[in-house]
């Protein structure tokens, strides 16, 4: 009888803890998300380099970049338990903001931008993308899940 109670108690404790552990607070590592962030970083920095030229010359490139960024955000937004990464993408791509989205808007408005400004802005945008990919790579890999 005592052994039965011990087993029952152990089962309840372990089941409760397993339930607790299964309630993850953040999504797991996603290779597609990581690849998207690193790939779009390269595209974005290349496009920004062209901002010394008239915007009209690169309008199609910028439109394509904006489309890819929107798709990446949409993917992240609809992933469960992914609010933090989604918020990071919003800051990065917001056309009324002051990161990459805001840079593209300013280029469109001013037609051309100065090299010194572009270079400094590229450093910050680069670090912003690194933040997104850094968080993704820090997430738990599905193969590393214990339970």
């Amino acid at each position, binding site marked *: 009888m005592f052994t039965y109670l011990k087993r029952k108690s152990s089962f309840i*404790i372990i089941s409760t803890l397993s339930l607790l552990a299964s309630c993850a607070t953040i999504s797991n590592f996603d290779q597609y998300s990581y690849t998207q962030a690193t790939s779009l970083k390269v595209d974005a920095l290349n496009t920004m380099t062209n901002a010394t030229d008239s915007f009209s010359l690169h309008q199609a490139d910028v439109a394509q970049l904006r489309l890819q960024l929107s798709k990446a955000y949409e993917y992240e937004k609809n992933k469960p338990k992914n609010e933090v990464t989604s918020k*990071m993408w919003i800051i990065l791509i917001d056309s009324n903001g*002051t*990161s990459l989205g805001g840079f593209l808007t300013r280029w469109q408005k001013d037609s051309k931008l100065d090299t010194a400004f572009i270079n400094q802005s590229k450093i910050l945008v680069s670090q912003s993308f690194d933040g997104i990919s850094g*968080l993704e790579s820090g997430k*738990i890999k599905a193969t590393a899940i214990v339970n």
Partner: protein
Amino acid sequence: MNTTVNIETLTQQLETGVDSLAKSTLQDYLTQAKTDGQAAIDEMKANLQKWTLEVESGALTADDLAFLIKEQSALDEMTALKQAGLAEVKVDEFKSNLVSMVTNTIFSFIKV
């Protein structure tokens, strides 16, 4: 057959295990977060100094400077979000490891 379990010893072992797990999982993260936070502050300071000099030299306009300061602020917000996300990852790791530790400890005391 010995059916008694030394609850005191079991509890002590679980407490030690939780303490050790919290230190290894969360303390390392806290140390890293502090280091990253300080690095971000240092970098922001260096950027502001550099941009001010570039405005003085005429390489950057006042509008450029205003934009870059806001851009730095956006980056800081993203850095804070990244740290918050990594903290959530560590909490998940802690919970997952806690289950393994408790399960292994209990089974080492009780032969099922």
